[in-house]
């Protein structure tokens, strides 16, 4: 048996307030398992149906991103960064571009900034739609998944029309975007938003979040208190579900987030239901942001600013840049020695940090709730393992 997966001790039994415990069994959920969202392995100790311990074992997708990009030039890194969080790749690109732009003080044209924000929010919407589907699957309803994928595909088609790729775009450039959006794209985007708000979202509520079984399953399960969430460095909907209204978009506005109005939904108790509802509300907030961005979008403007030096060299020093991805705060630490590429890069993946909370959430709950709690963290293994 591996270290750390040893059986449940008497002290731990006492902590849960259980006396005569039965013989615990250790069960490996994953790496081949229908609902670990990739190749995650959970070394779970069970007492009957009750989870005593759930230890994530990660690294099955590890490719050492940070080593590979050492010595690459900054523009080269953008497409490879896409592969980290492959469900919402725009945020990865933006992070790489933003760290270089912030370091060099490159100012973008308004049109480029607004379009970036639109793309990011569209991608956030798509990512949350996928989360909605997979979470429904985790708690045993298959149909919402199909509905979520139906709506997601239209969003992907929109992104594909503009960027040429469905999931991994390589669309952002240091200093702007690769190209402007095609004619009629903004109109189709508005149609999509109308459709989502008027037809798709009410269906989601009818199908799942308004369902009594769903509420019964999620309420009071996997509770993470405010202090615990802060101590574990959780960000994104996991932190907001616990009642901390922290959002990088609000705290350190980038793009045009400073100019648009939106709310940061927060939960109250930090249970599965709160995290789920925070994500549901964020979908509507994204729609709101995109609508305002469409209003803000200037008719003319350079999408790729010409004020970018031909040779990109970051001054010696180190830089830490953050932005808000659908999963939380994603950060990039760049150490430069003044060369063409980074000396060292560190990717702060939100799912990696949030996944640590799983053990805390699942202890003392049932196996079914362990899976549900994992669903509300919304991990992407490409990002966890990097």
């Amino acid at each position, binding site marked *: 048996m591996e270290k750390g997966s040893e059986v449940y001790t008497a002290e731990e039994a006492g902590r849960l307030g259980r006396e005569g415990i039965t013989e615990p*069994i250790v*069960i490996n959920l994953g790496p081949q*398992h*229908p*609902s670990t969202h990739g190749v995650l392995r959970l070394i779970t100790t*069970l007492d*009957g*149906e009750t989870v005593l311990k759930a230890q994530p074992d990660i690294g099955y997708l590890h490719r050492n991103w940070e080593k590979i990009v050492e010595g690459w030039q900054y523009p080269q890194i953008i497409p490879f960064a896409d592969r980290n969080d492959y469900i919402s790749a725009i945020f990865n690109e933006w992070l790489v571009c933003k760290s270089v732009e912030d370091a060099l003080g490159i100012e973008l044209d308004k049109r480029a900034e607004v379009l970036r924000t639109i793309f990011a929010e569209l991608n956030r919407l798509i990512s949350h739609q996928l989360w909605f589907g997979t979470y*429904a*699957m*985790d*708690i*045993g*309803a*298959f*149909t919402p998944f*199909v*509905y979520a994928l*139906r709506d997601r595909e239209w969003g992907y088609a929109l992104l594909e029309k503009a960027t040429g790729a469905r999931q991994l775009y390589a669309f952002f450039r240091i200093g702007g975007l690769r190209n402007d959006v095609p004619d009629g794209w903004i109109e189709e985007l508005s149609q999509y938003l109308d459709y989502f708000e008027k037809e798709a979202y009410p269906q989601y509520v009818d*199908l*799942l979040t308004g*369902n009594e*079984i*769903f509420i*019964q*399953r999620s309420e009071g399960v996997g509770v993470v208190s405010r202090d615990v969430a802060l101590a574990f460095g959780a960000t994104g909907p996991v932190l907001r579900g616990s009642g901390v209204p922290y959002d990088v978009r609000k705290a350190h506005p980038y793009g045009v987030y400073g100019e648009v109005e939106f709310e940061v939904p927060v939960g109250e108790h930090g249970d599965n239901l709160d995290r789920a509802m925070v994500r549901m509300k964020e979908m509507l907030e994204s729609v709101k942001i995109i609508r305002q961005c469409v209003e803000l979008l200037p008719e003319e403007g350079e999408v790729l600013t010409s004020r970018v030096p031909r040779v990109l060299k970051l001054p010696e020093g180190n830089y830490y840049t953050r932005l808000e991805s659908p999963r939380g705060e994603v950060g990039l630490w760049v150490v430069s020695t003044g060369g063409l590429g980074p000396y060292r890069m560190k990717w702060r993946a939100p799912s990696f940090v949030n996944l640590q909370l799983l053990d805390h959430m699942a202890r003392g709950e*049932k*196996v*079914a*709730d*362990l*899976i549900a709690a994992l669903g509300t963290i919304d991990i992407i293994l490409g990002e966890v393992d990097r």
Partner: protein
Amino acid sequence: MLPLWLQWVLWGILKAVLVLLFVTVNAIILIWLERKVSGHIQNRIGPLRVGGPAGVLQSFADIIKLLAKEDFFPKRGDPWVWWLAPSVAFAPALMVFFVLPIGPHLVVQDMNVGLLFIVAITSFSVLSVFMAGWGSNDKYSLIGAMRAGAQLFSYELPMVLALVAVTLATGTLNISEIVARQQGMWLIFPQFLAFLVFYIGAIAELNRTPFDLGEAESELVAGYHTEYSGIRWAMFMLGEYTNLLTSSILVSLVFLGGWSGPLLPGWVWVLIKAYLLIFVAMWIRWTLPRVRIDQLMDLGWKFLLPLSLLNIALTGVYMAVMA
């Protein structure tokens, strides 16, 4: 003229073949129907390209695929228990049909205690689940079997109690007699509580969502039949669909007036009512999320059981007053 014993044997074989044929044909239709219904509920079309109008040959393709699959046996499994479990799953489902009338006089053996027989036989299904879970020697299977065992056991009780009320109201255990007593009014109206309890219990017994804890895909991979493949897995599925058919036919006989209905022959009415109930079960399956094990137990023991007891009391009082 053949000797009498041979006639008996031949009749027996013929009846058995007919029942098997009926069950298989219905299971084939049900597999296709499940795919089609789930498809339409999920904004899809369902099978279309396998052959026939609306892909009706899908089930045959499924069967061929399952027959062609490798017969896998887990290395550390318990061979006899493992091999027997699928048969044990399918046999009781089939045996119920020997007393279940499909139409007036359309029954293999019109038994006087038919209802009792059915209740007794369906209890066997828990055995197969346990055998599969134990024989596989797999943790997922074992947990799935424990869950399914607990679930089958807790829902058996309210179901039987619901039937007790029916027996009280009709005064017989013979199913044909129960149908005959419903000529004036279907039993669903006076015995609505019993119908409710019995139908929820039946869905739970069938291991269908929202009560599919025994094979909860997102938690236990496939529950007690994780290790099964090919034809053995197909036996489980066949058993499950046969159980779905039997319980729907039983509900339509006991609560929905059986073969009473205008114009069409009796057996058509029974099947129409049964398929309506099957459709509702599928509808529920493809709409609702799964409940948790403790909620499932709560529903069984704290809601359905008291409800069925209350129903018996009410029926008894009514009978006493009327008498």
